[in-house]
């Protein structure tokens, strides 16, 4: 029994990989995909859910009395329920469908920020934010006269949360911070930030795009006011993301898009808005993507977020342990308690040249600033190479990755 349990406790990667048709596509036979922080691969279950919708019950939702539309509406709303349960929301109408994390943040910027921010207010961000949780707040501040403040990033790749007490003032209206860094892999203690912010009566938006795929989340335990993430980074389709907001906050916000489906009553000169969540879902939605995301969540739950987290932690430990021994490799970000997102530099070789070399060995990694220029400025670099691992990656992939680092050094050795 104990043995059975311990086996069950481990993610069976060989089985998991069979769910992803891209890995058995002949041209990809050699592919080692290490760019899941950019987007994850899609399992058959998700692709099938989308195909079934398109082939068997394509129709618009909430608008018609016939059976097809009933089925589409049920599929759509069922996914909303699954997502609410997945992140521990109190109500499914606190789940708003958007195009992605970026659009979700923009919804809060427009619907909440433009309504409530005033000159002299402060918005607290961190130096570790993805541009999608930075640029909207720059514009919100410019429009409203609010001021931006930043939680600094230290040399080890952690946020200096010790400075929170100084940074949070009675003028702070909102803290917008990432739950996990897409560059450094840092996992942020957002609970601590939320508690401190709430003491000062500030709201907190958490960017969970890099956290939700890797670990269980409970927005009520966190007491997050807003929580956003993207479907395509957690086995779901592109073009779908989630804005979670506490009911009272979403109710107080203005709609962001106006038009069909979001109204309660319409007159010649004015209209009233539908209840949550439809108030924020104007126009025809990306229904197949919603249904696909629902299927992705079912699969994640079947495999188990705890098991996935453990697998990711094992891979992270294994890769860091190997890279630590290489004096010509720099790994950015914390040594422990981090996600399997590994930004690194090889002495004397630019990140692009590393990525091209890896590609020649069929290892897909990313290079660049990863939409986080504040981190680059802080680290005083212009680009990093980044390998990000997920549930379909194995220790063998780590070995091949480390081997490619050695080979890259050999290849470029004549001119470094």
């Amino acid at each position, binding site marked *: 029994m104990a043995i059975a349990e311990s086996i069950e406790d481990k993610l069976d990667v060989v089985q998991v990989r069979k769910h992803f048709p891209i890995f058995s596509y002949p041209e990809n036979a050699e592919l080692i995909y290490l760019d899941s922080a950019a987007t994850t691969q899609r399992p058959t279950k998700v692709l099938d859910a989308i195909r079934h919708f398109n082939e068997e019950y394509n129709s618009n939702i909430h608008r018609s009395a016939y059976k097809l539309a009933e089925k589409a509406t049920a599929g759509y709303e069922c996914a909303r329920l699954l997502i609410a349960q997945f992140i521990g929301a109190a109500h499914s109408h606190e789940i708003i469908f958007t195009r992605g994390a970026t659009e979700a943040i923009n919804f809060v910027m427009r619907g909440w920020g433009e309504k409530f921010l005033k000159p002299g207010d402060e918005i607290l961000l961190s130096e570790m934010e993805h541009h999608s949780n930075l640029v909207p707040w720059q514009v919100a501040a410019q429009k409203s006269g609010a001021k931006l403040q930043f939680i600094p990033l230290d040399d080890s790749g952690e946020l200096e949360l010790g400075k929170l007490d100084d940074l949070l003032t009675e003028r702070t209206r909102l803290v917008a911070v990432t739950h996990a860094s897409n560059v450094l892999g840092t996992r942020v203690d957002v609970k601590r930030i939320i508690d401190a912010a709430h003491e000062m009566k500030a709201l907190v938006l958490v960017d969970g795009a890099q956290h939700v795929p890797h670990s269980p989340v409970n927005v009520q335990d966190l007491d997050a006011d807003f929580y956003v993430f993207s479907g395509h980074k957690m086995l779901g389709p592109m073009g779908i993301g989630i804005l979670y907001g506490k009911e009272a906050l979403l109710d107080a916000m203005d709609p962001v898009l106006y038009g069909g489906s979001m109204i309660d009553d319409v007159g010649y000169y004015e209209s009233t808005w539908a209840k949550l969540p439809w108030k924020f879902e104007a126009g025809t939605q990306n229904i197949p993507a919603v249904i696909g995301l629902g299927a992705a969540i079912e699969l994640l739950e079947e495999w188990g977020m705890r098991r996935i987290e453990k697998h990711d932690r094992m891979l992270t430990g294994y890769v860091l342990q190997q890279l630590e021994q290489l004096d010509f490799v720099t790994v950015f970000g914390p040594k422990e308690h981090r996600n399997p997102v590994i930004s690194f530099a090889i002495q004397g070789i630019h990140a*692009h040249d590393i990525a091209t070399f890896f590609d020649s060995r069929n290892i897909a990694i990313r290079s660049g600033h990863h939409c986080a220029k504040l981190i680059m400025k802080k680290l005083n670099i212009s*680009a990093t190479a980044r390998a990000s691992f997920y549930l379909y990656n194995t220790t063998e992939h780590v070995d091949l990755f480390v081997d490619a680092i050695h080979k890259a050094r050999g290849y470029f050795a004549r001119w470094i």
Partner: protein
Amino acid sequence: MDLDDLYQEIILEHYKEPKNQGTVADANVHVEGRNPFCGDEIRLTMLVKDGRIVDVKFTGSGCAISQSSASLMTEHIKGKTVDEVKELFKEFGHLVRGEEHTHEHIHDMDELSAFQGVSAFPTRVKCAMLAWNAMKEGIEKELEKYGE
């Protein structure tokens, strides 16, 4: 896809020891090229007089392809007329994109042909073109001033 086609000896040499580094003191063209996706940067200064590139220098940071391309470009455009350089720009573009082109080769591409290998690596075309695009933009701005 052979890496050696991309990273030819001459390219690596220019990456290691770029030519024409710095700023032209009496430059009348100052232009920056930036690749927003990867953070590669080129700052180019040129002295353009009587329709001729009299002097050109650059500073920058980035990958082997973008920096060596900048270095080789400065060597090849110095002393040429603006019209010749514009033509060279076109030819270089065709070369790195691997495009067939009908117009005659009026220039000997000599060392620049080392960038032919880039055409097999579409994601690196923008690296090779970074300095060239900046150069063209700079020259066009300068010419505009005189209503050309």
